[in-house]
């Protein structure tokens, strides 16, 4: 390996281990039967609050972790409520007959096992968790009131050196979508910069549904070296 490459890999490793980004500490996983590759924050909230029951025509079933870092991080990032608040929310549904308590398991590994074995299941795990048998969903965060539907998605090419060294993670991008649906601008907000560059190259080829105005979106893209 030449020096520049070694420096690049070393830098990437340092960045990977030192970056504790908002979206980088967990990943959203789904049963492979689920057609969707991308999920909006609004869809995530709807599913995990028991309000949304299907995604792209398939019934979805959320699975929670009982506690732990991934659980707290997920609640803080996507549901905006504490574990106690969430429990009370579901208890209100349960005791009024409007719903039932969701499936809850003890660990990341159990979430992966449940999601892998349950059609339509969707969960969250720590970024470093092995996710064999499940798919990882990209989370798109929209700013303002316009949520744009993704029409064409191009998967990023995994940087070879990082893949060989099993370096993965999740990168967070800010994306500006033009009214015609093309990606006008993409920049890295958090995560490994080498993975970020690969993600930006791919995202610039994405195509969204046209809209009357420009939209700013935040997306997270996972890179899993185990897949």
């Amino acid at each position: 390996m030449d020096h520049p490459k070694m420096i690049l890999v070393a830098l990437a490793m340092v960045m990977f281990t030192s970056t504790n980004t908002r979206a980088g500490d967990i990943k959203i996983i789904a049963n492979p039967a689920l057609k969707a590759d991308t999920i909006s924050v609004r869809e995530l909230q709807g599913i995990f609050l028991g309000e949304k029951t299907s995604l792209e025509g398939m019934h979805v079933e959320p699975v929670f972790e009982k506690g732990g870092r991934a659980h707290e991080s997920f609640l803080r990032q996507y549901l905006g409520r504490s574990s106690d608040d969430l429990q009370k929310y579901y208890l209100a549904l349960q005791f009024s007959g409007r719903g039932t308590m969701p499936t809850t398991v003890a660990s990341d590994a159990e979430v992966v096992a449940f999601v892998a074995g349950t059609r339509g299941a969707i969960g969250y795990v720590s970024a470093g968790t092995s996710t064999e048998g499940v798919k990882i969903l990209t989370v798109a965060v929209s700013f303002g009131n316009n949520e744009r539907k993704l029409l064409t998605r191009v998967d990023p090419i995994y940087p070879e050196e990082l893949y060989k060294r099993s370096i993965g993670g999740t990168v967070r991008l800010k994306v500006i979508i033009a009214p015609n649906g093309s990606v006008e601008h993409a920049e890295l907000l958090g995560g490994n910069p080498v993975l970020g560059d690969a993600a930006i190259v791919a995202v610039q080829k994405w195509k969204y549904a046209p809209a009357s105005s420009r939209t700013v979106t935040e997306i997270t893209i996972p890179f899993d070296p185990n897949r």
Partner: protein
Amino acid sequence: MRRQILLTAFLLLHGIRPLLHAQEFKLFDRVVQVHGWLSQGFVYTDENNWLTMNTSSGSGAMTDMGLNFSTRITDHLRLGAQFYDRNLGQLGQWHPSLDWALADYRLHSWLGIRAGKVKTVLGLFNDTQDQDFLYTFALLPQGVYPTDLREATIAHLGADIYGRIPLKSSANLAYTVFAGHRHDSIHSGYPYLISQYGAVFKSLGGLQYGADLRCQMPAKGPLLGISRLNEDTSGKGTATDPITTDGTFPYSEYSRANWTNQFYGEYVIGRLRLDSEYRRYLRDQMIYSGTTENITDVRAWYVSGGYTLTRNLRLGSYYSHYTLRNEVKGALAPYFPGKTDTSLPTNHIYDKVLTLCFDLKKFWNVKLEAHFINGYAFVSYPDGFYPQENPNGFKPNTNALVVRTGFYF
């Protein structure tokens, strides 16, 4: 009665303990979830007796409990039922009831149907008012959620159509439309109030239909809503002549009008939670077998705030404002002069409340709540203060201490 209470307590204490660790079981290869709660309150007042209890001497006659079972049959179909029992002074009297029992078929996020005995959606808390563990307060604002009248709005035997429609903004519009038959317990506030006049109900209830519409953010954030409830209350029983108290005769009553409008809002920011609701309730009832018309116009609102001080300690406060106008026409009109001046203590209840809620364990809390009440609103419709427990008349001000503890699983 005492044996029944002891037996219930024994079953709960010994039945719930293992369930705290095993909240589900399998039946015909389906997972059945089991959840329940038990709460016990103690109330002391310095003046008027409250909520049909002898509270001026201190009363612990405030117990309620429930147990529910639910299971999912398919991705779209869910079945469940909840049993409920309570004793609140002279109300409830340990007569268990089926709180709700329903089949819930959810076709889409925007369309579902619940059928059976269904809790009535009305305002923020009508369908969850019994689960005090969900709230900071030991008693919800009584002007809008009078616990002695819970049966008048709590559930209906019928169906709800409900759904959630995403709006262009990030908000959702949730709707519920419902219709059914309501069965009021004869051990509830209204039958107890009019029993002082010699009327004893054998049946009480009627049609209930309405709708609820609320606009809410998916996660924490502002929520605004409106509910409308139409009811018919027909009752049959026996009565003694209210004037001569001589002999009994068949008694009946029915509604000419009975509706509730409720507007509400909720906002949660960080550790702070704010709620406010306004309820107007109009009841035009033909009583004493159609000889007398009793028109009651209740207007109530509250503002409440709750703040989480530490992981185990919450502080709450609310102001509940309740006014009541009453007009009686017909045979009994001379004995019940109209009440229109809501500034008088006999026509209003203003309640200032301060609460501390301690979470002793994750599933067990204790609440200390102080009420500073002005007024007693004594008319021919109940509101917490009953003449049976206050035979020497009412005082204008009452301070109350409520201690309530409960656990759930």
